[in-house]
């Protein structure tokens, strides 16, 4: 019998304690938490009261190296395709065209001073597929692909999630391709001629070896 009454008593007291807590929060609702980010020294001084934010109007700031939307600084890209190979979800598509020797100056250098040897007409990132793991960022030799803290980039049409970063338009790319093909053909011809003349036949390269480029430079100039 005493257990019966003590049960009722604990029930009543614990319920009263719980109700006290919720009532305290109810009256605490006049205060609101601010929206300073975690890197701010005041972060834990502003956490009392209502803690939700009205999202599109107010938002928790993302930290400086937040890993959200991918961005490619194509001026720094050397077209090495390492990110494409490293991506676990295959969301990066890169097409490269070798820069012809005369274009090297046009193609320019990266901000690190490295000579770029590739045109990158297609550098597409399907951000809808991207799982923001940051592996591409870690393998990039020139740090030109990186995640930005832009967290909200939703679109109504999924096709808009495909981001194009290529540095050549289609027409330009065609022209560059043609140019390269011509030069390669010429190089192959020269080489074949040279091979026929002298050394045992080098492979009639369907894929150009990287060497002929400087030779061509002289020929063209």
């Amino acid at each position, binding site marked *: 019998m005493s257990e019966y009454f003590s049960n009722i008593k604990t029930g009543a007291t614990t319920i009263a304690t719980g109700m006290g807590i919720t009532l305290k929060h109810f009256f605490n609702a006049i205060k609101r938490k601010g929206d300073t980010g975690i890197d701010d020294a005041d972060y834990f001084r502003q956490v009392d009261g209502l803690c939700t934010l009205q999202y599109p109007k107010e938002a928790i700031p993302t930290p400086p190296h*937040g890993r959200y939307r991918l961005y490619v600084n194509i001026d720094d890209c050397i077209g090495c395709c390492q990110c494409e190979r490293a991506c676990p979800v295959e969301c990066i598509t890169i097409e490269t065209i070798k820069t012809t020797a005369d274009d090297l100056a046009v193609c320019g250098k990266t901000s690190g001073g490295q000579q770029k040897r590739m045109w990158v007409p297609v550098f597409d990132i399907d951000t809808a597929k991207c799982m923001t793991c940051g592996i591409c960022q870690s393998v990039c030799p020139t740090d030109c692909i990186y995640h930005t803290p832009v967290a909200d980039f939703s679109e109504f049409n999924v096709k808009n999630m495909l981001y194009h970063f290529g540095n050549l338009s289609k027409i330009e790319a065609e022209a560059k391709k043609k140019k390269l093909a011509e030069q390669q053909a010429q190089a192959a011809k020269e080489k074949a001629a040279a091979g026929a003349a002298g050394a045992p036949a080098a492979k009639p390269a369907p894929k150009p070896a990287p060497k002929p480029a400087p030779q061509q430079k002289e020929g063209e100039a």
Partner: protein
Amino acid sequence: MQELGKAESNSTRIIRQDDKRVIIEKDLDTEYMVLSMGPQHPSTHGVLRLECITDGEVVVEAEPYLGYLHRCFEKYCENVDYPAIVPYTDRMDYLAGMNSELAYCITVEKLLDIEIPRRVEFIRVIVSELNRIASHLVAIGTYAIDLGAFTPFLFCFRDREHIMSLLEWISGARMLYNYIWIGGLAYDVPADFKKRVAEFIAYFKPKVVELYKLLTENEIFVKRTYDIGIMPADVAINYGWSGPMLRGSGVKWDLRRNDPYSIYPELDFDVPVPDGKFSVVGDCLSRHLVRALEIDESLKIISQCLDKMPEEPNFNSRAVIPKRIRPKAGEVYGRAENPRGELGYYIVSDGKSTKPVRCKARSSCFVNLSAMKDLSKGQLIPDLVAIIGSIDIVLGEVDR
């Protein structure tokens, strides 16, 4: 009186009394009802499906069906490089990504046999304990929802949000971190990180007490979980239970103590097991209590780590990460204490490729859930919900 068996249907029972007279007792003619609980049900924590055979509100048998969230983790692993598996481990137990990463990375490091800088180890322990707190907060919060209390859930999430912010600050992502890498970390922690974590602990301690008062001590909550779903220690071991589930059954077994990894041997913390005063050892309440107490222990671990962590200016957290991860041929079973129990990885390397030949994830929820059939026998439906909640499953990890 002895029940000899059931004849015709379950409504008729043949009973022999002491004087050897056989009587046939006929009840109202009732039938069992098959009740499909899930995959879309509020308290199956995702897409678990339980096929319950019910007799009124009493569950005669509940058979779990899995696979609705199967994402071929193991097949994936065989097709990507070792470092690229790390983001996938996040997605297995998405509530405790850091712990999953830690388990995977220490497994591969065991195979590679490399030494990790001490500062990295400390940071790893801090983030994984923070994540353990976050995970337990979700476990406790959703358990409260299962039992009908909504407010503690939101209080838990409010506090979890701060942990998410802390982890986003250091790793760049809120849930799927890819922060712990094989042989190191993605980044060193920001300068103010230690200070902010200390502030978080100061902020969080009174909130835990409030949570206890609001939920754990509430008489209705206690009555709902007390003496429900009891699992004896030996059966729990035989079922391969681990983590808070096993400790809830009174077995003091914690991989951080019993199979120590990282810097846990240097740290001072308790492994809470129920003493049977407040709960029956092995019931749902014990499991809940273990989780609640583990939050305190994790806070203890974090503050110790903050004190002991070596300060190294210009620390390169990627210093010892191998350029190309290609372990020598061999196999390894490595594991770590996840918030839900033992998360193990069985990895086979052929020594030639940069991809594992086999990478099996031994998920704790998968094993813990396998006892569901036994636990659910003869329980009421509300108790069934309480039991599922106390197992604290994450379907991402069960189905992989």
